[in-house]
């Protein structure tokens, strides 16, 4: 199986300044050649995993476990401090609700902006425009500024763009909770079609139920390390036990 995403001993360090760097103070520090007073914080350390093309893998973890950092590394908006991140294929990141949408522009204009940022050419957007609008199902609101949209409508339009950029790797970040039941079903159907088409799915969540429904494999991150990795049901079970009892189970797998 070809590799879609591979993390090789990945570490991501953030420097935590307890105060925003203050220019004058920084200059004095530079002149006096004093060391920085920042603390380091490793959001991820020694993380190894591989996701094959066509696999659907969930990344589980509580807040602050390194899920978002992992997602950012896959989306390649940031680089690892140590180790290597290998990603093969066009990535379809799901923008946060409304992110990348400009409130004063119409839905129609935002489709162009958003799709182009995600790597589509004008010809591709022109060709897919009608489908995107139809899929979002927001009717005549497509000509109205985004600021008049409800949260659900924004999510529908955002998801519709992602669904039509035809990515090789789809990154999903807790999206299925938004939109009404009907649209949630549509999303799920789209994701299933996507899986059937042999695309890779990387789903970040802290809900075992959603993970079990969509993914065959799961990775549980805890404190920036892989706590468990393997079959979704097994990982979810351990994760659920941890949520219920605080029991971490077996030691992190040696990598």
């Amino acid at each position, binding site marked *: 199986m070809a590799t879609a995403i591979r993390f090789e001993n990945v570490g991501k360090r*953030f420097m935590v300044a307890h105060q*925003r*760097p*203050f*220019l004058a103070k*920084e200059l004095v520090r530079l002149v006096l050649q004093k060391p920085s007073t920042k603390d380091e914080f490793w959001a991820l350390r020694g993380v190894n995993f591989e996701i094959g093309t066509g696999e659907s893998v969930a990344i589980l973890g509580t807040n602050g476990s390194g899920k978002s950092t992992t997602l*950012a590394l896959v*989306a*390649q*908006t*940031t*680089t690892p401090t140590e180790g290597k991140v290998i990603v093969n294929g066009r*990535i379809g*990141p799901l*923008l*946060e609700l409304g*992110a*990348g949408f*400009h409130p*004063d*522009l119409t839905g129609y*204009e935002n489709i*162009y*902006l958003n799709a*182009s*940022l*995600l*790597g*589509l*050419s*004008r010809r591709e957007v022109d060709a897919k425009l009608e489908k995107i609008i139809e899929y979002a199902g927001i009717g005549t609101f497509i000509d109205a*500024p985004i600021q008049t949209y409800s949260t659900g409508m924004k999510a529908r339009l955002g998801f519709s763009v992602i669904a039509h950029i035809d990515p090789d790797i789809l990154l999903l970040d807790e999206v299925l909770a938004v939109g009404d039941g009907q649209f949630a079903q549509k999303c799920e159907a789209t994701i299933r079609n996507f899986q059937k088409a042999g695309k890779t799915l990387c789903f970040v969540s802290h809900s075992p139920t959603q993970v079990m429904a969509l993914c065959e494999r799961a990775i549980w991150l805890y404190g920036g390390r892989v706590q468990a990795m393997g079959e979704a049901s097994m990982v979810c079970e351990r994760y659920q036990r941890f949520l219920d009892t605080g029991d971490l189970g077996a030691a992190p797998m040696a990598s």
Partner: protein
Amino acid sequence: MQTFTDIVRYRFVLENLVAKNLKALYRNMALGFFWSILNPLIMAVVLTAVQLKFFGARHDWPSMFLCALIPYNFFSYCLSGCAYSVTGNASLVTKVRFPRQILPVSVVLTNLVHFVIQSSLVVAALVFFGPVDPVTHAEIGVVGWQLLWLPVIVLLNIGLSLGLGLLVAGANVVYRDVQYTVESVMTVMFWLCPLVYDAGFELTKDGAAKGATYWLYFSNPLSALLDSYRRVLYHGTAPDLGVMALCVVITALLGVWGVRTFWKYEGRFADLL
């Protein structure tokens, strides 16, 4: 080099960003694009009234002022826009991978559109308040071969805006002080650069030699540019070649500094936002 090939590859994004900037700016305003002209127009009217009343300016003062104000505005809007270009699009920068230099470049292109629109004011001023010779009071014809300098000066102006734009865009991610520094510096520049007075003319009046003051003054590339615009458009002469050469060198140095600074911080943008 990659900087530029990436921009070409992502030109559709660039187009959309520029369209977004233009549409979003004036969408909810009754006067729409007219604001682009209204702002410098009001400025020119008020300052002209003051100059005529209290400083004994000649009636061609608006054309002298506007042919420097409009390029100054372009530069100023570019710089303040660029300072916010990365920090203001944090949600995009942290989520999507695209060449980040597109953000400041889109600001410069957006303002280039405003620059073109506002240039109509310069033309109008030159037509209605045509420049006169300060001594003989005879009308000066400004339509001539020296206008061929204009594209060169405009290109330099764009280069300077982009170079320093990249600098402040990158630096502002690390130190948010930069955006406020830009505002203050531009206020100072309004008085330091030849806008309300004709420094190039005053410093060489009555055949005065170009001394240290002259070169020090025009080592500021914005002053050099504004003076060049003014010589070509208002005095009807070629720009001072020495000043232009100095301006090219300094603009190039600042450009290198800007590009380097931007790339130095670029990899950390998503972490710092």
